[in-house]
């Protein structure tokens, strides 16, 4: 990759992140309802109107009455200094609000993605073109799991494995054992999704001439599947994974909610409800960053398993 290209990539990545945060910033200002009123109601647990006098200190402190452009420039200026602002409600820097929740969220999503991959690959390797019954079963299983609503999986897993069988803790927190069910909650539907995509590709690749070539050279069936077919078949799923990592935030909030787990999903929902503009924008910035990095990794992964490099089975 040329230096120019790398610079371009980095600049556009930053642009995407800032743009995402900016869109969020403006979108939130467009939401009806006064931020100072929301804060007052939150602080008092009420849902009423307040007089201008009562709201004045909040307006002054957070600059709610400044022209929107001034508020925006102030915010973006902060971004470039690494300052995401201060949470209106928690009174601490947004970097800290998010920082504390990022690790559990990342662990959850990355683990879910990894488990989903393992499940999807196992399903594909073991069932594609292994006879009509096994193939159909594999495909049906994938279609079934891909149709499962996250939260339903979560609630059912919780009741079966934690409440009834008591295998896993109910309030797992961030412990490894307690993370098993949240990870599965996200991983099972995702595995179905990835499996479907991989299966299609796998079937096509199995028909390619180079596969036959490899077989005639005496390679075992499993070896062919693993060494040649799979590396081509996973490409679409790799692309999807980049997207999935960002999308998992949404699923994560449900797992967090059911299993009482910390994470940015929960923070996001609370922050939107309380009109905590800097926190919401900050989370979007972070999710955008994750997305950008994930896609960078996808590009790298592509380079590693690119079919053209490996076509014909020789290196």
């Amino acid at each position, binding site marked *: 990759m040329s230096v120019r290209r790398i610079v371009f990539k980095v600049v556009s990545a930053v642009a995407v992140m800032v743009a995402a945060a900016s869109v969020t910033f403006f979108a939130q200002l467009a*939401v009806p309802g006064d931020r100072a009123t929301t804060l007052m109601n939150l602080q008092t647990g*009420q849902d*009423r*109107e307040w007089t201008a006098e009562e709201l004045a200190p909040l307006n002054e402190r957070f600059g709610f009455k400044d022209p929107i452009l001034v508020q925006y420039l102030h915010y973006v200026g902060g971004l470039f200094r690494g300052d995401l602002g201060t949470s209106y409600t928690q009174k601490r820097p947004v970097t800290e609000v998010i920082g504390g929740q990022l690790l559990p969220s990342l662990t959850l999503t990355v683990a879910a993605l990894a488990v989903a991959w393992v499940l999807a690959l196992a399903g594909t390797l073991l069932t594609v073109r292994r006879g009509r019954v096994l193939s159909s079963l594999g495909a049906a299983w994938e279609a079934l799991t891909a149709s499962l609503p996250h939260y339903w999986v979560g609630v059912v897993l919780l009741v079966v494995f934690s409440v009834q069988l008591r295998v896993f803790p109910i309030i797992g927190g961030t412990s490894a054992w307690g993370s098993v069910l949240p990870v599965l909650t996200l991983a099972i539907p995702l595995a179905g999704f990835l499996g479907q995509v991989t299966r299609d590709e796998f079937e096509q690749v199995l028909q390619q001439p180079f596969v036959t070539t490899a077989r005639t050279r005496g390679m075992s069936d499993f070896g062919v599947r693993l060494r040649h077919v799979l590396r081509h078949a996973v490409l679409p799923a790799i692309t999807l994974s980049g997207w999935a990592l960002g999308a998992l935030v949404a699923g994560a909030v449900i797992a967090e909610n059911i299993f009482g787990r910390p994470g940015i999903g929960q923070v996001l929902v*609370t922050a939107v409800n309380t009109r905590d503009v800097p926190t919401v924008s900050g989370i979007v910035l972070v999710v955008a960053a994750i997305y950008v990095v994930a896609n960078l990794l996808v590009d790298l992964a592509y380079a590693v398993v690119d079919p053209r490099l490996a076509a014909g089975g020789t290196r």
Partner: protein
Amino acid sequence: MTRRNRVALATVAVLASGSLAACGGAAAEAGGEPQTGGTIIYGHVQEPPCIFGGWIQQAYISRQVLDGLVTLADDGSVQPWLATKWTVSSDGLRYTFTLKDGVKFTDGTPVDAEAVAWNFDLWENKKGNSTAKVSIDPYYKSATAVDATHVQIDLNKPFPLFLTLITQGYFGIQSPTAYKGRSEQENCEKPIGSGGFTVKEWKHGQEVVLAKNPAYNSWPATAKHQGPAIVDEVRWKFVADGVARYASLSTGESHVVYEVPTVNWKDAQSRYQTIRYITPGKPVSFFINTKAGPFTDKLVRQAFAYGADRKAAVEAGFHGVIPYEGNPAVSQATPGYNAEVAKAYAYDPAKAEQLLDQAGWARGANGIRAKDGTPLTIKLVYGAGFIFTQEGATVLQVLQEQWKKVGFDVKLIPATQAEQWGGKYSDPSTFDATPSYWTSPSPSILWIVWRPSLPDSPNGSNRSFYNNDTLSTVIQQANSEPDTAKANALYGQAQQIIQDDAAGVGLYTQNSTYAVARNLKDFWLEKSQGEPVFSDAYFTK
């Protein structure tokens, strides 16, 4: 989002009162050996933004860390806490408190008169706690340290319920030195008081870890033992999901859980100790918009009240656990409660139909009534998932069906927290009825809620937009009446006015329900608004 939790609408109050904390569960408790130490795991629902503040969720937790001047006993009397005794001047305007000797905040500074006066100033004049402020606002004048152990509070007008009101958690005393010397964030996360516990760590999104204050020497007169907390730690966990929260008791992952799902209540009673606390103050009742829409007509409001079997709906929706409350103004746990008022508007569909006919709303082809071509549509806005749990939503759906039978087309409009807090439904044009509650240990809540909204002093809490001068006068008389019996008669009269005019429609009492593991003893709820108390609790073997 969490969603599913309720925001307790905050409070203000003035009189002492009787609400009941019934201890259920199996009476036959194996009396085990008391243990010292250990960690109590408490499954709570909602996580507040800061420990101390004007929201009831904050009062619950700040009660563990901060002590108050006085506390409320189960009989409704005000008892010593940081103040050992107090005197009230004959004109009812000056309260002089004598502070307990030798009490220190956990930062080592003394709990003296200076500190107490500074706290009052913080709440009332420096935006330190808006609920504390609104509780005593029109009456509070100033706080002065007379000497190190005597603090004097001056009022503008007599207000006998002042003492009762300051028993609430919003009036927890913090260390001025710590407050002034630390960052806003530290004050938010780890307020410094003289309480039985200190905030050791706040794992946001997960739990607050409270550690025993070994030097604790300022327990209230109502405490169940003398001395510092018996357990070492309380882990105050946030478990939004009701199924998980309740089930965590059975696996031993928690020892106390809040808000037991009503479907599990019977099971809880057979397996654990249970506590049901009926919150005093405004119950969960409908504000009825008297300023715009069909409810400007009193007959229609009354028909609305008659038109649905609210009692049966509440019993079904909450599986008989939560009591119906027919009095829209104050709940049965509130001192000065008028039980007669609660009996009005018992389910009578025929009466409802007759009132609607009389008011000129005639049946249309689809069964919905209309007048001058306008259908009788009622916009019923409710806080989905936070003020109203799923169980409450069931009650509303049952009522909706019954109202339909007498000709009301009730539209249920779930409001998100963002909408409700953002004031989307504060204008009279946006809703016709909206249910809410406001906990308070005293009937002076009537003044907060029903004070007329005037141009120069608007009252945003009067969500029925109901301005009644007679009502206003009666409540003010009651608030300043030194004789409790006379005051309660006046409060009762105020409730009667509200009910007669159907400015509100009663529904059910706001409750706190707890299930407690059998091997944990002396966990209790204080009286003013059911704040949990952990500093006396101990495990048995």
